[in-house]
């Protein structure tokens, strides 16, 4: 199964989890956020963004689920995340 992580804990995370389907949800390993306000969402660990660097980007895809997706995209690239692994939740792009 593809190993996915999410970035962004706001209202669009809820929309993403509502729309993504159970099978997809089971493949989500963690949710990162710049200011995490809880430890878990739907049973998935919420981690601080600074832990991303330590993860060595050991995932196949990171999906941005925040309306600040341009800033987060740039942040991820700056941290060294390969661009090919970064995806923006499509609902945000056509918002």
């Amino acid at each position, binding site marked *: 199964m593809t190993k996915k992580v999410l970035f962004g804990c706001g209202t669009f995370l809820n*929309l993403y989890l*509502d729309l993504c*389907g159970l099978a997809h949800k089971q493949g989500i390993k963690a949710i990162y956020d710049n200011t995490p306000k809880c430890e878990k969402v739907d049973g998935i660990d919420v981690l601080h963004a600074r832990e991303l660097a330590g993860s060595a980007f050991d995932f196949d895809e990171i999906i941005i689920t925040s309306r600040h997706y341009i800033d987060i995209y740039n942040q991820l690239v700056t941290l060294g995340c390969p661009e090919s692994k970064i995806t923006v939740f*499509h*609902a945000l792009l*056509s918002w």
Partner: protein
Amino acid sequence: MRKNHINQNTKRETLNDNQYSSDIILILTYGRAGSYFIQSLLDSHPELICFPPMYTSAFIQEIDKKNLDISNANAAYDTLMAYNDGFMLGKTEHTNNHIAEMVRISNLEVNIGISLEAFKTKFLTFYEQVKKETSDLKLCLVKTMSYAFDAAINDYEDIDIAKQKKILFQCHRVDYTLINWFSEQFDHLDLLHMLRSPLTTLCSSMRYSLKLDKDGIATFSTKVLENYLKFLFFTGDVIAKPNISHFGVRLEFLHQQPNLTLEKLAKRLNISFHENLLTSTFGGKDWTNFEGKEHLSLFNPDHVREGTLIDDITPYKDAAFLGLRLKSKYDHWHYQHDFPGPSRDTDANHFLLVEYLAVCKDMQSAEAAYAKQQPIYRSREMQFFFDYACSHQQNLIEVL
């Protein structure tokens, strides 16, 4: 009276085993791709309630955004009638010139023959009945206005007749929050996405925007262009929710092979293929989307082009620039294309003619600026969309 009336004797023959339908169909579009046209074909189907197309998802969004009062039958009715000045709902005297002009430009001047009094009476009666079944006021409004419209057009009193039909509604803006809300309110949601050759759609949208701007109806700005482009690049992704069926219908197929395409569509929507599908109507009254309205046939295979459109709005280099970003859609939806194949490096500093048009508003000065590639403001968002679209991996919807 409208053609699609199901009377008490025949309704069982045309409907599924379920007594009441809890299905809804939303029509999506990514520009001028035939969303009104497809509704006009589905309009007279006896198993569907097609609310007038000028009442789009924007109306539902406005209820939330402006906190409009829909808490009781009278308030909900007033809110609905105020939204588009009662156009296509039986109101004959209009005071809002802006909406009247939009109706004219969108070719929606259809006298559908609905009686305002009949619509109001049914709306107020049905609202109370629907409210007993749901505590969600927006859902109550959507169902009530649909049921009341159908009952007024077809002249019946029994809400149960309406409840056996599927509701069809225009969801022009691809608002996933609203789509998700609809999917939670209904057992099944069909997302019918109207598709058209992407660059042809863009050109048509640009011409329409320039026309609106020239007539003083809506300003054509860089922001408007940005919205068109992001819809073009990023809509059409599959939505994974189990009760959502998301698929596309090509406008070109509809014109070239109407019977076959509509048969496939009817099958997918789980409705019977019906002769009425070949007639373009709103509220049962004939309608055509072609300018001048004098066309004898509503299907016009010569009118649609599906190849790469290189013309006065998208010259060769712009078509290549945009085509690179739209290639997956062209390929996946089997559209012909012959993009010259530029690289990201060579077009990094290229500005599009449509970007100049959004600023200059007239072709002559836009072309002059374009020829010189004069530096022009490009928003951070637009630049991101251009860059990201090059590498965006999409899981695109199936086309019928």
